[in-house]
């Protein structure tokens, strides 16, 4: 296990890199996902169709292919960017579909009487969604969003396999493939790194679920 302690700095940098990528993706995917969820419950048929098609396509497509399309498809039509940008964008587009479904189910969990009351006092669709339903949906939506976030953190490892440097997974590549360090400790270190993020996140999620059950 000397490899891990000798390269603690490298692992720490990787951990930070992963957190940085995940932070960016979390914010962007949350915004895009909420937007899409709004589309999916809207009274305007074309918008609903956009939401449905987006979710169906993206959820059924492997993240790897989404990433390849971004990094090697977009440049074909003259859209260029840094590799990390494409990676973050691809992961965002992918995650947003799952955020959308989580938010939609959250909207569904709000008591129907709430929306009815909002309409009764004359609020429009967007007002009742913004002022009455979504704030309440927020609580119901937190646990499924938490699961999406954890899945997203794990998916970010694919970016590393894809060639985006500076995150946790790429540390294994540097140490094992490029420097020839033994595989077992190198990969164990990476696994520990992910567990450092995932396990507290999972516990947080569990606590949220418990509290939610209690308030109901």
């Amino acid at each position: 296990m000397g490899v891990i302690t000798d390269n603690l700095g490298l692992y720490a940098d990787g951990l930070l890199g992963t957190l940085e990528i995940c932070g960016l993706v979390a914010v962007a995917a949350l915004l895009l996902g909420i937007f899409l969820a709004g589309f999916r419950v809207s009274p305007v048929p074309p918008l609903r169709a956009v939401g449905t098609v987006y979710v169906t396509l993206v959820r059924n497509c492997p993240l790897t292919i989404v990433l390849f399309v971004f990094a090697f498809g977009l440049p074909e039509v003259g859209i260029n960017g840094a590799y990390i940008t494409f990676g973050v964008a691809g992961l965002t587009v992918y995650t947003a579909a799952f955020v959308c479904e989580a938010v939609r189910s959250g909207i569904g969990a709000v008591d129907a009487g709430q929306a009815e009351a909002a309409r009764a006092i004359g609020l429009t669709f967007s007002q009742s969604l913004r002022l009455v339903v979504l704030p309440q949906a927020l609580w119901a939506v937190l646990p499924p969003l938490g699961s999406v976030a954890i899945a997203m953190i794990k998916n970010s490892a694919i970016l590393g396999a894809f060639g985006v440097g500076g995150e946790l997974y790429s540390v294994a590549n540097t140490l094992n493939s490029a420097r020839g360090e033994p595989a077992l400790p190198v990969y164990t270190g990476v696994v520990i790194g992910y567990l450092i993020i995932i396990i507290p996140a999972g516990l947080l999620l569990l606590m949220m679920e418990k509290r939610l059950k209690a308030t109901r």
Partner: protein
Amino acid sequence: MNRSVLYDAPGPRGRRRILVASVAAALILVGLAALAVRRLATNGQFAGEKWSPLFDPNDVNFPDLWRLLGGGLLHTLTAAVLAMSLSLVLGVLIAMTRISASRWYRWAVVGVVEILRGVPVVIAIFFAYQVLPTYGFRLPLLWYIVIGLTAYNSVVISEIIRAGILAVPRGQSDAAAALGLTRGQTQRFILLPQAFRSMLPALISQLVVILKDTSIGAFISYEELLRRGLIIIQTLRNPIQTYLVIAAIFVLINYLVGRLAIYVEARLSARRA
């Protein structure tokens, strides 16, 4: 809750407004699509030689290309089916251990489950690919993917099965006890079949996850669908067109599997009603 709760059944004015909004939205969509098409056209993406090897049976490369893709699809499905089967077997074993084992043993199982659940699948696959051979386990590439996928999915499936077993009404196991069945028999003949049936939709949905994750195999040069696509691209230089076809194949298969889950779910709840 259905949509109609969020807004009244629209009156004449509301209908008019929705119509206007629909037309506006449709126009914007058509506009965006037109921009995309123009972008593709100005970058030469509609050139015949980029499409015809994929779609024109008379193209010289068409047979070779589809033989490659077909074989790739077969490798994808093989990996997915093997991983799903192994995950099911292991998942049931883990679930039963977790429910019936003694306390300390159970904690050990929970620990392993939690660790495996936290490991990204891509890392599980690379772990198998890089670590196993150094200990003398030299396997065909397929198996590293299957092992990596199974490590994660057996744990997920065990949670699904466990939830199913816990959801079986208590009267069932009481009745089984009254009949003189042992604990093991109760699990095997009474609880597990019912849990399995009620969780069938969730299990089918997990197959979509597995199918998608097989494409990680492309990173260890297992020639599944995506890797075969990359081989095609390095000769034909048509990434957009090839990704389109590969993505379409994945979406179609996964969509059908997803529909199957919904269908099974509907049939089950119809029978319950």
